Structure formats: structure tokens, C-alpha cells
């Protein structure tokens, strides 16, 4: 278990110098665009674009390797499960049937199903670079400031920043407690029965959670004493003001989103691209 989840290594390039607000907005706009569209002709350019931005931002492959593996496993499982559960979902969706070959009667591979599942793979793949970009190029301290400037209540934004601040502490506490309990003979591995394992996990949970509750008291007293929450608004130390490049980046993302919507409304007449109805 690593106390450090991801590295924020500051660099001097276009993407890093953008304000956190811009990156949050662009991330949200582009992910929702990709989520909405089921047209491979729209998603593929976004995918290429996001990998290009990833390249521009000089993020090293080693930094994103683990995430990439996780996502590939997830996509593979989703791909297999989709086919197992709904082998004819594409046929239902596109309203035509072009059989390619049959495995069994139920599991007939159709062109429609391949298009549907293929689009889905590209869709899920294109979201990853966007998320990684946002995560790896935004200073964690700036995150709360960004959230509050897109309209999230500053109290909720502060909770997010507390989460990021205390996560490594929690990992450390957890490790200390888990090692101490394991030294006393507690088994958490698969060798133990499910019921026993739950009981053993409780023996780590209780000290971890109760000490965290004490910590809640200490922190909230400290914040109250400093007058937290007295005013309706607050300012942020880590806030980066918006400059011309931020405007450019936001305009570009909005343009991509509008283009995707235009394709959906005027060309596809819906979320799905249907090449089978000629």
C-alpha cells in the first residue's frame, strides 16, 4: 500500500500553466461529451486529441502505467460481460442484423454488436487520458480552489481538500494498526473463512475509525477557533487567476463539445451513429 497515490511534478508547459479551474472545466466538458456520444467518428478524434495533449504536457509513461493496466482489465471484463449478457444488444440498438459468424445459436457475432462494443471500448479508452491529465497536471492544493470557483459550495470544496490532505495520514495509521494486529496473529488473507476475515478486519477498523473520530474533534475545533465558515465566501491561497491561454483552452473544449452535439443532432439524429440503415 502506497502512501503516495500519484506524483505531482511541476513542469513549465502549456498544460501545467493553465489554471486548475480551466483544467477541471475542460475535463468535465470533454468527459461528458464522450459519455454522451456513441458515434465513433466523434469519439476517435477526441481520443487522438487527448493523447496528443497528454504528449504536450510531457507526462511520462511510467506515471500512468498502472492506471492504464487497471483500465485495460476493466475494459476487457466489460467487453466479455457485455457479450455474455447481451450478445444481440447491437441488433436491438441499430435495428438491423448482419451476421458474421455463429458461435452458438444465442452467441451469434453480428456487425452491429461489434460496432456497439468497439465504440464502447474507444469511448472508455478516451476518457482515461483526460482524467490522468487533470489529475497529474493540477496542483492538489489548487483543487479545492477550482471546485469552489465552478460553483461548488466552499464548504464542500474544503471537505475535498481535507480528504486529499489526510489520505496519506490514514494510510500510515492503517498500516501501523494492520501490522500491529498481524503481529498478534490476525489473518486477513484468503486462507481464513469469510466470517473470520470480516471479524479480523473489524479489529483493524475499530482503532482506525475511532482514532479518526478523535482527529475530527481536534481539526474542527482548530478550524472553529480560526473562524472557519464565518463568511459566505472565502479566498484561496493556491488559486491561479485565469489568463489568455485559459480562455483559449476552454473555447477549444466548448467547440469540441458543440461539434459533437451538432453531429448528434443534425447527422445522427440521436446519440448513436447508425451506418446500417442506408
Amino acid at each position, binding site marked *: 500500500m502506497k502512501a503516495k497515490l500519484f506524483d505531482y511534478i511541476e513542469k513549465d508547459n502549456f498544460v501545467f500553466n493553465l489554471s486548475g479551474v480551466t483544467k477541471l472545466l475542460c475535463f468535465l466538458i470533454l468527459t461528458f461529451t464522450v*459519455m454522451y456520444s*456513441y458515434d465513433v467518428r466523434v469519439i476517435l478524434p477526441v481520443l487522438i486529441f487527448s493523447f496528443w495533449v497528454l504528449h504536450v504536457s510531457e507526462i511520462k509513461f511510467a506515471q500512468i502505467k498502472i*492506471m*492504464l493496466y*487497471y*483500465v485495460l482489465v*476493466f475494459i476487457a471484463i466489460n467487453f466479455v*460481460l*457485455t457479450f455474455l*449478457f*447481451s450478445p444481440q*444488444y447491437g441488433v436491438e440498438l441499430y435495428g438491423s442484423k448482419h451476421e458474421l459468424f455463429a458461435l452458438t445459436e444465442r452467441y451469434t457475432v453480428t456487425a452491429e454488436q461489434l460496432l456497439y462494443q468497439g465504440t*464502447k471500448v474507444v*469511448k472508455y479508452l478516451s*476518457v*482515461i*487520458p*483526460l*482524467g*490522468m491529465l*487533470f*489529475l497529474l497536471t493540477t496542483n492538489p492544493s489548487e483543487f479545492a480552489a477550482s471546485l469552489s470557483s465552478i460553483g461548488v459550495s466552499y*464548504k*464542500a470544496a*474544503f*471537505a*475535498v*481538500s*481535507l*480528504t*486529499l*490532505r*489526510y*489520505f496519506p*495520514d*490514514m494510510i500510515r495509521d*492503517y498500516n501501523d494498526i494492520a501490522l500491529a494486529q498481524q503481529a498478534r496473529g490476525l489473518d486477513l488473507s*484468503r486462507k481464513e473463512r*469469510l466470517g473470520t*476475515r*470480516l471479524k479480523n*478486519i*473489524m479489529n*483493524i*477498523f*475499530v482503532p*482506525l*475509525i*475511532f482514532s*479518526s*473520530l478523535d*482527529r*475530527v474533534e481536534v*481539526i*474542527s475545533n482548530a*478550524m472553529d477557533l480560526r473562524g*472557519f*465558515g464565518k463568511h459566505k465566501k472565502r479566498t484561496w491561497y493556491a488559486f491561479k487567476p485565469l489568463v489568455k491561454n485559459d480562455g483559449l483552452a476552454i473555447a477549444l473544449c466548448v467547440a469540441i463539445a458543440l461539434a459533437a452535439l451538432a453531429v448528434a443532432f443534425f447527422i445522427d439524429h440521436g*446519440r*448513436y451513429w447508425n451506418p446500417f440503415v442506408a
Partner: protein
Amino acid sequence: MKKLFEFKTKTIVATGIGAALFMLLFMYVKVPTGIPETDVQTAYGLGSFFAALFGPIAGFLIAFIGHAISDAVQYGSPWWSWVVASGISCFIVGLAYPRLKVDEGVFGWKDVLTFNIFQIVANVIAWIVVAPVLDIVVYGEPANLVFTQGAVAALWNAISMGVIGTLLLFLYSKTRAGKGTLSKE
């Protein structure tokens, strides 16, 4: 009288710390059941405990933030439909908050029942209604797949909340001194 939607400094801090714990458990402390991708997430037990102690807003934010950040860190991007469903499940558990007096040391059989009724309703709504419907609407996933996944998630999360949540509340109530428990000698 406890207000359902109050958001004091203490609630904010509890949300932050709770979400950090939620993230930790969500990513690292799962109980494998033998079926791939369907571990019992102990994080929901914790989420329900915090929701019962600090109310629905804290519950919602803990699960929402915790789930979103751990998804982002592991997969690069949050799976929004399930993140929202997580938040809603802990929000509904949090509605039990004004009925419980755990921080005054009271957690009897009646309270166990109250907590578990809320918890089961919460899981059914979140995982059998909200998550699959959002999956279909937002991501265009096939219906029978997402409803099966939802039903499995509802079952495991209800077990997690029912066992871990109830136990934590019971143990926590034991550490609190109740009202009027001092006696004159």
C-alpha cells in the same frame, strides 16, 4: 433536536476525514468473495457509520468524494453513474440520523432495526434503481447486464453496511457516556 441538513464545521471535517477513510478502504480493504469483480466493499460499512453519525449531507459527500477520487486515481476517470449511486446510498442511510442517538451512548435493538431498514432501502434504491438506470441512460450499457451487476452490488453492500456499520455503531455507542449517567453518592 438534531437538524437533518445542518452543515457545521464538524460535519465538514467529518466529511473530509470520512472520505479519506472511504477512499482507503475502497481501494485496499475488500473482502474477496471468490467471484471476480464482486468483492464486499468494506468502505460502505464505514460510509453508513459516518452517515448515521453526521447526517445525510456528510454521508452523500463522503461516498461521492471517496468513490470519485479513488476511481480517478485507479482508472483515470470516475465512473459517474456508480459514484452518484454510492452518494445516494449513504445519503439515504443518513436520513436515519435524527432518529438515532448513538453519540449519547444509545444503540439498542430498536435502533439496530431502524438503521438496517434505512440501510437496506438505501441499497435497493441506489444499486437496483439509480446505478443501472444511469448506466443505461448515460453510458448506453445493456439493461440485463447492469441490473445483474446492480443486484449483486446491492446484496454485498447491504451485507457490508449491515455487519460492519451496525457493529461500528454498537461499539461506538459503548464508548460514549449517555445523558444523566452520573449518579450522586
